[in-house]
Structures are given as C-alpha cells and as structure tokens.
C-alpha cells in the first residue's frame, strides 16, 4: 500500500484541479440528493389532493435538480478523470525517458516483454486507481454522508433498519472481488500454461511428427485445456454470485423499508411520500456501496504495479555525466587517438573476464582490423569506447582524456558505430540514414548512401528515400540492412567509425567498393573494423587477433601471415572455402 505514496508528487501537480473536482462532486451529490425529497413531497402533495400546478412545480424542480446535478457530474468527469489521464501521461513519460537513460547492462537482464508490461498494464492499473478510483471514492464518501443526513432526518429507526444490509453488500463485494481476483490469477496462470504448451508443441513439431507423438501432444494439450476449463468454471462460480448478491441485498433494503416504514406510516410517524423517498435513496446508495468494495480491489491492484514502476524508475543510470566530467571538452577537440591501458572487463555478476589486460594504441587517421572467434571479446572491446560499458579495471583514453571525463554526448557524437545486428527503425530509409540529425540533409544523405553502396538499391524503390521500412513497409535484405546501417554511421561524419562485423551479409565486390569509399572518407579519421573475413581487414594499418579476451597476435596482414599463427590458419581455411564454393 505504501508504494502508492510515491504518487504524491504526481497528484500535487494537479492539486488545484483535484480540489475543484471535489467541490464539484459535493455540489453534484447535494443536487441529486435533494431530488428524491422533492419527489416524496410531490407524492404527499398528491395524496393530499393538491393543485395540478403545484404538482407540475414539483415535477419541474425534480427535473431541474437533475439538470443542475448532471451538469456538475459532467464537470466532475471532465476534471477528475481527465486529471487521471494526465497523470497517466506523466507516468508513462517518466518511465519511458528513464528507460532511455538506462545502460545496456540493465537491458541485458530484462526482457522486452517484461518492460512493455510495465509501460502498459502496470501504468494502466495505476490509472484505473487514479481515475475511477479517486472519483468514486470521493462520490461514495460524499453521497453516504449527505444521504445519511437526510434519511436520519426523516426517520432514525427506519434508516438504521434500511441501511443494515448495506455494509453487508460492501463486505460481500469486497470478498467476492478478492476471491475473483485470486481465482482469475489462477485462470491467467492456467492460460499461460496452455499458451506455453501450444507454443512449445508448434516449435517442436518436427520432433513430434518424426516420433509420431501427435496424439500424445493432443492429449497433453487436452489436459491443459481441461485444467483451464475447470479453473474458469471455478471463477465463474464466484463471479455468478456477485450480481444476484447485489440485488438480493438492495431488494432486501427496499422490502425492509416497505414493512417497517409501512408500520411507521400506520402509526403516523411517516408519510407515504417518505417511503417513495426511501426507495429512491436506497437505489442511489446501492452503486456507491458496490463501488466501495470495487475501489479496494483497484487499490490492491495498483499498489504492486506502482511498486514495479518505482523499482525501475529508482534505478540510477550507472553511466552518466557526473562531478568528474570536464564540460570544457568539445566535439572539435576530439581527433581520434585511442589508447587502451591494461583494460580488463567482466560483466557484472559474472566470474569470467571477457577482456584480459588489453593494451592497444590506435593512432588517429588509421584503420584497425580485429579478427577472432565468436566470444573472443571483439564486440565488448569496441563497446567500451562509446561507454556502453565501463572497463572493470584499466583505463581508456581518447586524445589523452580518460573516457569518463569526456561528456557522454561529446563522446558518443564523435563515434559512429555500425553494430553487428543492423537495427533499423520502422520509418523511411531517409530518416534512418539521417538518424543523427533532426533535419535531413539531402545531399549528405545521398552521398552517404552512395558510399555505403546503398544508393542503387534505393533508386529502385518507387518511393526512393521515402520508402517505409518494417512491418508497415518493405523488408530489406540482410545486406541492404547492413548498408543502410553503414550509411547511417557515415552520415554522422564521426571522428571514429566502428564497423562491428558489418559487411558479413554483403558480397565481396560490394564490400570492396564500400571499403575503398570508406578509405577516402576516413582519411583523417580513425576506423575500427571487426570481421570474420580476412578480405575485409587485410588492408588495415594494424590488425589484432583476439583470443579468449586477449590480444594473441598483432601486426599488418603480411606480418601476421609471416608469423604462421592463428591468423595464418584462418587465412588458409578461408582460401579453401573460397575454392570449394567456386566448384
């Protein structure tokens, strides 16, 4: 429950509107509460044979009160529910902006689905509590007080008797709500079991078919389905209670009034009109009483959601500018001279070092090639430069500045990276290429796409650079994606360009074209190229061979071949592979 206190700053931002909303609720309820009195008086007047014009007056007043009350109801919703939507907006904004600032290490431990759940269903639960929750609790509270005041003024004894079932309704609704919630959790679990089963069966269909286990799997699914069936019916058993329970108890109130009120009328303590009033008031109280139990359920649901929300927004981003940051360092100061001094790295919580004692100098304006088996630490090594991670020990400097004193935006603006997986956004190709700028520079975009060997492909699309990618647009081939990703990095005109195995899906001819184009662009800049293919890196100024997180060999292509070590072996194998594929 305490976790909901975290909503305080969000609520106080709309303090005035919420207060106004509450005043309006009081006015609304008051207007509505007096209507039955008017009707009661009208009935009494009718019983006493009043003038038609008097009765018409009563009727008009009754309608008028509802008109006034209804206007206030309109304003209530426009205030309180709207505020809840505003807060939802704020919460989602805060959540999303926080996500944007959290480092890679955070994302490694979370699944996308899990984070999506936070952003959607948890915030939804909180919103439901804020909007309907707050509105109905204010309404219920106010209505209860005003109605009780009026009813007690009519007749104390009848009021106590008539209200006797109401707390029972609230309790019943609360209990049924809790049971419903627990049982629907079980239904949800069963459903996710069933979903998993279907998912697993369809994924493993080859095994199932080759061992002829379809019948068995059908039976297994049948079991899960049956379990779901039984759990759903158990839920239905409770749910089926709520409706009859509700009108049984309100019906009971009315019957009690009819009897005890009737006796009071006979004794002359009450009028028949009073009975009419009771019937209407009790009808008005039913819903708020039900709402009471319902609100408690909303709170029960919102509290854990708010806790999950806080759990994430409370995480401080590890990698961020701080006291040590030197804000005098500007982008123009960065030239691209990189130095790794005794750098070691392991992922948090892991025992094994991914990089061990790496010492490496990359001069500005040169090309470094990196080769090595999967898992040898190549990607980790280059990820240390834009500070995706910080080294566990050792130091990296850029133009003599330790990385952690360079403002993060200066550092990252100076580096263009083409990651292993070419992630593109589902917007136009042009916007993807010009991702680094807010306004597309057409010339630069076309130039970059030419250098990345993408231009010819784009020219063939009917909508050219406006072609939309992704689910709603076209699907690019692996090679096209890689080249778009390269164009995106080139467009940025970075001081340091990193290609992380980014030419793997590109054929050798295109590769050569891209590499020679890069050569001229990167003349005065630093490039780091990771590849599995010798052909990609053989012209680099310096090549390192990584093995189990250590630099095993270093030198130029010819020097490395002469060593007859790992590099030489890879070279031989790739020659052979080429021969076979040409057969």
């Amino acid at each position, binding site marked *: 429950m305490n976790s909901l206190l975290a909503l305080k700053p969000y609520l106080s931002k709309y303090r005035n509107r919420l207060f106004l909303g509450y005043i309006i609720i009081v006015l609304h309820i008051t207007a509505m509460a007096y209507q039955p009195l008017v009707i009661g008086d009208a009935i009494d007047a009718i019983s006493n044979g009043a003038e038609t014009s008097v009765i018409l007056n009563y009727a008009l007043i009754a309608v008028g009160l509802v008109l006034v009350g209804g206007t206030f109801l309109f304003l209530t919703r426009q205030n309180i529910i709207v505020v809840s939507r505003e807060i939802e907006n704020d919460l989602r904004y805060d959540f999303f902006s926080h996500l*944007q600032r959290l480092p890679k290490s955070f994302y490694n431990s979370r699944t996308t689905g899990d984070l*999506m759940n936070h952003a959607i269903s948890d915030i939804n639960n909180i919103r439901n509590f804020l909007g309907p929750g707050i509105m109905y609790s204010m309404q219920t509270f106010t209505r209860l007080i005003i109605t009780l005041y009026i009813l007690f003024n009519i007749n104390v004894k009848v009021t106590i008797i008539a209200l006797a079932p109401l707390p029972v309704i609230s309790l019943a609704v609360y209990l049924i709500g809790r049971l419903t919630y627990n049982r629907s959790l079980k239904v949800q679990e069963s459903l996710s079991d069933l979903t998993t089963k279907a998912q697993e069966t369809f994924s493993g269909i*080859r095994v199932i078919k080759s*061992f*002829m286990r379809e019948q068995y799997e059908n039976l297994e699914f049948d079991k899960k389905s049956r379990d779901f069936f039984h759990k759903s019916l158990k839920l239905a058993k409770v749910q089926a209670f709520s409706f009859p329970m509700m009108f049984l108890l309100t*019906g009971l109130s009315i019957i009690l009034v009819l009897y005890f009120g009737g006796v009071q009328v*006979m004794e002359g303590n009450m009028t*028949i009109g009073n009975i009419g009033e009771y019937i209407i008031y009790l009808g008005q109280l039913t819903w708020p009483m039900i709402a009471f139990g319902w609100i408690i359920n909303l709170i029960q649901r919102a509290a854990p959601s708010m806790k999950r929300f806080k759990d994430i927004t409370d995480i401080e981003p590890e990698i961020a500018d701080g006291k040590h940051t030197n804000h005098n360092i500007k982008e123009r100061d960065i030239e691209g001279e990189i130095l790794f001094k005794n750098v070691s790295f392991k992922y948090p919580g892991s025992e094994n070092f991914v990089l061990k004692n790496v010492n490496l100098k990359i001069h500005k304006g040169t090309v470094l090639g990196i080769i090595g088996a999967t898992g040898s630490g190549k990607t980790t090594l280059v990820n240390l430069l834009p500070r995706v991670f910080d080294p566990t020990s050792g130091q990296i400097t850029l133009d003599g500045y330790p990385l952690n004193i360079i403002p993060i935006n200066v550092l990252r603006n100076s*580096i263009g990276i083409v990651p292993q997986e070419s992630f593109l956004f589902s917007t136009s190709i042009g916007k993807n290429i010009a991702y680094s700028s807010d306004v597309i520079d057409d010339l630069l975009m076309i130039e970059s796409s030419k250098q990345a060997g993408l231009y010819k492909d784009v020219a063939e699309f009917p909508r050219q650079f406006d072609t939309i990618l992704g689910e709603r647009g076209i699907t690019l081939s692996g090679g096209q994606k890689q080249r778009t990703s390269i164009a995106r990095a080139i467009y940025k005109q970075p001081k340091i360009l990193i290609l992380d195995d980014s030419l793997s899906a590109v054929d050798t001819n295109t590769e050569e074209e891209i590499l020679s184009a890069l050569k001229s662009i990167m003349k005065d800049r630093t490039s780091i190229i990771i590849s599995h293919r010798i052909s990609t890196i053989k012209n680099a100024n310096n090549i390192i061979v990584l093995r189990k997180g250590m630099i095993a060999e270093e030198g130029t292509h010819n020097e490395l071949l002469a060593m007859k070590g790992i590099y030489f072996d890879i070279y031989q194998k790739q020659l052979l592979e080429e021969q076979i594929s040409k057969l």
Partner: protein
Amino acid sequence: MTRTEDEALNKPIDKRLMRRLLTYFKPYAKYILLATFLTITISALAAFRPSLTPIAIDEKIANGDIPGLQLIIVILLGTLVVQGLVQYAMTYLTSWIGQYIIFDLRKNIFDHINSLNLKFFDNSPIGRLVTRVTSDVEVLFEVFSSGIVTAFGDIFTIVWIMTFMFMLDVELTLVTLSVLPILIYATIIFRRKVRESYRRIRILVSKLNAYIQEHIVGISIVQYFNKENRTIKEFEEINRSHTEQNKKSIFYYAIFFPTVELIGAISTGLIIWYGGGQAIQEVISVGVLIAFIQYSEMFFRPIRDLSEKYNILQQAMASSERIFEVLDTKSPIKDPEHPITLHNVKGKIEFNDVWFSYNDNEDVLKNINFKINPGEKVAFVGATGAGKSTVINLLERFYDVNKGEILLDGIDIRNLTRENLRDHTAIVLQDVFLFSGTIRSNITLGNEKITDNQIWEAIRNSGLEEFINSLPDKLNHKVNERGSSLSVGQRQLISFARALVYNPKILILDEATSSVDTHTEILIQHAIEELIKGRTSIIIAHRLSTIQKCDKIIVMHKGEVKEIGTHQELLSNNGLYYKLYELQYKEQPLNE
C-alpha cells in the same frame, strides 16, 4: 498486428460465419434452451416485484392492514430469493456452456494444426498459430457465454416491464415511455462516437506500444547516436495524442451519463406531473405512481446493454473468420487410401531421380540417386546448403518429392501411412528440442509402453547414466522450457537416448556442430557408435570419427551428389571430399 486489430473493430456480421459458429452450439442445445428459460424467468420476477408496491401501499399501508402487509412482504422476499437463486444458476450455466464450447473449439483447432504438414509451419509464424488457440478463442467465449443468452434476458426484461406497466395503467405507461425515443437516439449517437473514439484510441495504443517496443529493442542505436532526447520528444507526441484522444472519450461519457440521468428524471417528472394529476382525480392510486417510478428506473439498463452486445458480436466475427481459415487449411501430404503396411522392415533405401524445391523456384535437390543397403551406415557430407538436411526431410516425408521416388524396401514411401513409415525410423536432430517436463518424459515423449528398464538401458547406452544418477530426482528431474538448465552435450545425449528407446530399424542422425568439452565428446562418440549399431543409419556427419565408422560417404554439393565412396577411396580421389577433409576434419583429434 496493428492492422488486424483495426479490422477486428469493424467486421460486419456475416450470416455464413454465424451459421457455422452456431453448429458449435448444437450439442448444448438443451442447456441453452434451459438457460433461455431461466433468463426469461428472472426478468419476469424482477418486473413482478414493483407491481406489488401499489398493493402494499394503497391497500395495506393506507388501510393499516399489518398482516396483509406482512403477507406482501413474504411474497416479495420469496420472489427475491427465488430470483437470486435462478440468477445464480443461469449465470453459472451460461459460463458452463461457453466454456464447454470453447474447450471443444480449442481442441478442434489444436488437433487440426498438429495434423498439418511442415510446409504449413514453415509459412506460419508460431506466434500467430498460438493466437488462434488462445485469444481468438477467448473472444468467442463472450459470445457463447454471456452474449446471446443475456441478450434474450435484456429483451425479455424490457418486454416484461412494459407488460406490467400496461397492466397497471395504459395511459401512464405511454407517458412514461414517451422519453424512450430520445434515450434510444442518445444511446445510438453515443455508441457511434465512442466506438469511433475507441477505434482511434486502439490505433494510438498500438502505435504507442510499437514505439516503446522498437525503442527498447533499438536502445543501443538511440544511445550510440545520442538521440535520447529526441526519442523522448517523439514518444511524448504519441503519448500526448493518446491522452488527448482519451480525453475525448471522457468527454463523450461525461455528456452521456448525465444525459441518461436527465432523461430518467424527465420520465419521473412526467410520471409525477401527469400521474399526479390522475391520482388527484383518483383515476390511479399513489401506489401505482410509486411503482411507475420504480419501473422507469429499471428500464434503462437493458437498452444500454443491448447495444454493447452488438459490439461483442462484431469482434467475434473477425476472430471466427481467422479460426475457420486455419480449420479449412488442408494438409497437402496425405496418407494413401489403400496403404501398404510394412511390418519387418529390412531397411533398404533408394532415391531414384529425386528432385525437390521448397518454394517452386529454386531446386534444392537435383536428380539425386543413391542406394543404401539394409544395415549399411552412410555419411552425408558437404558444405552448408548442399541439401543434406533436405534428403532427411524427404525420407521422413515431411515434404513430398517433386519428381522421382523414394523407396523403402522397394516400396514407394507414398504408399505407406506416415505412421507406419515413421514407426521404423527415428531422427536425431542437430538442434535438440527438449519439452518442459521431466528427463523421463523427454526420453519417452509420453509413450507409456516404454518401461523404466528400457529407459535405463537407453541411458546406459547413450552414456547418460553418470549424469542422471547425479541428479536427486533421477528420471523425474525437471527439464525447463527448451532445456535451458542442461548443457549442450547433455541435451544431445538425451536426444540419443530418445532415439535408442524407440529402437528403430532406420536411424537418421543430424550431428551437431557445436563444440563440447573433451569428456562429453568421448561420451558422444561412444553413444553414436551405440546408436548406429545394427541399424541402417543415415548421418549428416561433422565428426571425422563418425565418418570413419561409416561404410559409405555421399558427398553433396549444391543440391547434387558429387562423390560416393569410402573414406580412403574418396581421399585418394583428391576431389571435393579431399578439400572438405582438409577444411573441416583434418585437425580433429580421433579419441580412439
């Protein structure tokens, strides 16, 4: 995803689909009839109670008749309790019917999907198939359970209330109902506005979701390019329009609810004004007046509910269309009408002029010819994409050949039932698929005829004994989804045990390329030896040790058989095999 959601909202009600859906109701016709009867009873009882109010007020209270009042009270209490009980029974019964129909339907879909051939699975994302047996079916539940039966209930409530009102006083009824057209009109307008607004909200929600999802998946790019602020700004735009659209729907509700109350109040006002006049002239009694006020309050809910039901039905149409589409998909691979049944298979396999392509334009296998004699062990080698796995797929009849024939013991496999064919073969795939369950269930795959003795024998022969004995629960050790708690080597050994326990005549093995530690490597090599002993074996081999145990090597390249022979023969040929040997096998140590 988003597109289908958009469609889901505006699906006209299709009679043909409706009729087909109704066939699922048939087995439960009796119960549905009962539920309908119950719901009519409920609405009658609910409408009956206020009709007693005038009697209580005019005849009993007004005349001070306490015993009479007590009698009325007892009748009221009685009907109230009966109504509660019947209501409970009806609600439960409709859920029960709905759940049963859903259960049948779900089973139907699942079994049908399972019966389809691999080509279907190649073309359908698994997520989509799962949706068919889960959320699509769930949408229909609403129609089957509450939807149809309670719609009857709503209609009858209206009918009963009108009946009782007319019985009490015709004129006053007409006066009361005079606001009805306004109410219906307001409801229709509101529904239309809200539906449109919800449609927009839904589109915005999926836009919002897509944006969040994309920027969580692509967080690295955002951060590499320093675009956090711009991303947040873009997000806020969508977030904002989502909020604004929601505010619009709040506005509609904020208008609608007071309007309904006002219409109700006008109706009450009319009753007081007109009815009051009548009462003064003693045409009607005060009790009747109060009863009418009660009725007018009961009248509005069912009208609102009915329009809700129509929406549910529209959504159900889209789901049922998708479901029937799957149910109407037929498997192109069929068992023959008059199958030949093979009992004691010898294990001779022939491929004669076999051609095959997965998608009709690129031949994956071109004119494949080879013969494998009973008990022979044959290794298939070649680069990735050479067509080795396709040979296995065809032999297991996951797909049918485009041209040529495959013979088992001289019989075209298309003349056998798939069950008969697969009874004699067992396949060990490179990517070991483990199901969540236990070690035992993963070895037997649920076949209860396999005894524990057989399982243990298979475990011994596949070198798993030491590992299984080290587990506290032995065979009952729990295996997670996709077997993530086991090492790659252990998973392979389990899949070997799985094949051994089925004791097939023909073994198909797609050797895994992933590297394992030396100890496991030795275990695997022994297990493979055990696996192929005394069976016709077809192996897509990656281990030199495995190749050397084979009688024959078939070298494939770009969909063709290039060389056939023994290891020594092929090496001395100095052809493709020699090159592959140099590339892949030469450096492998032989743990012999």
